[in-house]
């Protein structure tokens, strides 16, 4: 018996049998692993204290499937989850994403959350590609499924402090003292520990830290902290901050009429984000961040920039450079591994990620290659200064778009 479209009973039975077999196998992940789409669980703090940065990173995730399909021919399906800037929520969301079929996890812009997600990824055998998180211990645990394409706090600091030396040379300045303020979360503590370890060895730097002040990144008021910092009469402020606290701190500096030579972030977010400019206006000017940045001349950057403008016609990539760049690259790493592995099986993907060697990339630094610990080495930073209300590369000289301004001019409240 044949129907009007030419399907006979035997063919129909074969289709039914295949469907039943696939359905039976899917709980064991056998059929799922062969699926055409790569399911990427994206964990970001889209609400809570870090919501602005989380949403900034999300822009990088949102444009990734289109760009990657064009580049590699791999179909990526995003499974978005909000960590709510909370470590416990990050852990439970990671669990749920895996239960719902995520084959790779990406995220989460926070060291505390990254450490929690890494544990889940290891237990469940699902690869986890960190977009942004700097605490060194995350890749020091001997994990087999955790990968990081972002500098550790030590590397961030080494690059960042090196650029501070270059900044002083370029501006012929010799600040003698700094007050060090830092957030007291996992990232901030790691950076503080790193500065304590590295700074004494960098004898070419002319300054010493006269006081260290830690504070809660969720603080609503930094009056006391800024009063203490101002009282040190330090030449400049060395600041490891997040976004919201950076805004509060900058406002408080104006209220207290504190005009140090400069505000320099040695490798942290906060002062180059779009919201920093929007919230502070002219007060955002001259702040300096020594951070990993994209190379505007790279072909991939231009491609991502075009996709970004298409998706965000009223926005500019430069305000999300680090967040979009590293989030995009994390998904690119997963898609590249999917293409080479020929399967979406998480274990095969993890093996393929270990063999990654992406030479054409967006961010400054060498090729994306993981060492035995799952860490990419050789990532570079740039000295970014807020000039004319946007982040401007001022060092290294080879990539500079403008000359650095240091000491920064005083402001009028």
């Amino acid at each position, binding site marked *: 018996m044949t129907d009007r479209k030419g399907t006979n009973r035997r063919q129909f039975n074969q289709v039914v049998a295949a469907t039943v077999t696939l359905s039976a196998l899917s709980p064991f992940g056998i059929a799922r692993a062969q699926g055409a789409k790569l399911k990427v669980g994206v964990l970001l703090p889209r609400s809570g204290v870090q919501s602005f940065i989380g949403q900034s990173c999300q822009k990088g995730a949102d444009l990734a499937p289109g760009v990657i399909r064009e580049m590699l021919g791999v179909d990526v399906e995003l499974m978005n989850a909000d960590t709510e800037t909370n470590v416990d929520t990050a852990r439970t969301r990671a669990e749920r994403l895996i239960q719902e079929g995520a084959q790779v996890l990406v995220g989460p812009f926070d060291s505390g959350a990254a450490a929690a997600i890494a544990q889940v990824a290891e237990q469940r055998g699902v690869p986890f590609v960190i977009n942004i998180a700097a605490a060194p211990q995350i890749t020091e645990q001997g994990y087999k499924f955790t990968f990081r394409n972002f500098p550790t706090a030590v590397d961030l600091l080494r690059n960042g402090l090196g650029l501070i030396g270059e900044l002083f040379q370029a501006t012929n300045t010799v600040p003698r003292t700094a007050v060090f303020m830092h957030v007291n979360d996992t990232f901030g503590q790691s950076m503080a520990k790193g500065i304590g370890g590295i700074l004494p060895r960098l004898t070419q730097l002319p300054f010493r830290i006269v006081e260290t002040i830690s504070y*809660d990144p969720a603080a609503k008021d930094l009056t006391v902290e800024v*009063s203490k910092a101002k009282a040190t009469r330090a030449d400049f402020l060395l600041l490891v901050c997040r976004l919201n606290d950076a805004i509060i701190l900058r406002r408080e500096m104006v209220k207290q009429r504190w005009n140090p030579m400069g505000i320099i972030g040695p490798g942290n977010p906060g002062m180059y984000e779009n919201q920093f400019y929007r919230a502070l206006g002219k007060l955002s000017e001259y702040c300096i961040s020594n951070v990993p940045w994209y190379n505007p001349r790279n072909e991939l950057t231009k491609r991502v920039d075009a996709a970004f403008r298409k998706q965000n016609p009223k926005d500019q990539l430069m305000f999300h450079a680090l967040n979009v760049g590293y989030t995009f690259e994390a998904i690119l790493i997963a898609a590249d591994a999917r293409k080479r592995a020929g399967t979406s099986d998480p274990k095969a993907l993890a093996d393929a990620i270990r063999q990654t060697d992406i030479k054409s990339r967006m961010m400054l630094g060498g090729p994306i290659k993981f060492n035995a610990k799952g860490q990419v080495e050789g990532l570079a930073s740039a000295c970014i200064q807020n000039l004319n209300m946007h982040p401007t590369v001022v060092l290294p000289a080879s990539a500079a778009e403008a000359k650095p301004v240091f000491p920064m001019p005083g402001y009028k409240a």
Partner: protein
Amino acid sequence: MPIDLVVNVFVAGLLTGLVYGLMALGLSVIFGVVRVVNFAHGEMMTIAMYATVVLFAALKLDPFLAVLPVAAGFFAFGYGLQAAVINPFVTRPETSQFMLLLAVAMVLVNGLLIIFGPDARNVQVAYQLESWAIGPILVDKARAFAAGAAVVTAGLLVAFFRYTLVGKAIRACADNYHGAKVVGLNIKRLYALTFGLGSVCVAVAGCAMVLLVDVTPALGMAYTLLAFVIVIVGGLGSMAGALLGGVLIGVSEALAGLFFTPSAKSMFSFALLILVLLFRPQGLLGRKT
């Protein structure tokens, strides 16, 4: 440590503490009369902050001018909430009251999330970043205005309760519920009025607070907790106690941040709470029951 630094920090703590005190005053007034602990207190202040932000964005209305419409709206909201929702729970077990007001808090937070999203919002007025220099002491203008508003509001409230017939009737309700009923006072209406007045305190505190901190939907819980700490330290039901508690918490947090570590600021306010609970459980200005 330079003395001007200590004085600067003390003044900032004092001014912030007065605003805290005004916020807690609403909680104290409501509890003192209605005997209901408002677990949605911080969330109500958050709504007042959002209302101020909206009025500023739409009409460029200064937060201190926005006090009038926001306070009027809050009086109506508080009156309606007490009359329609809380009054039936007044004679029920305290656990039922807690659950009711926690539910109200959850509804308010999630409503704000739906309407405004999770992002922080603020107002930017010309004097917000300015300060007065009195010798080596810098006084933050916005903080000083906020503290001034707190003192004026508290003064008006005290005058209302002391010198008006309605205020005296409310105090009579608080002192002797059955006696007030016997003399024919409309208890339910007076309770609703009290809740409305407590809400006005919260509204003024919210309008002032928006100059000092950015508002997010999740902000309320921390301020509910802070208000509890303040009224327990000052004495639950005591108006003067609420202001005193606010000032003590504001100053102790500021000085603790200065002399120890800023990260441990809130630890000291809770330490103060434990000390008060141990040695004067009714609060510094509270009456023994």
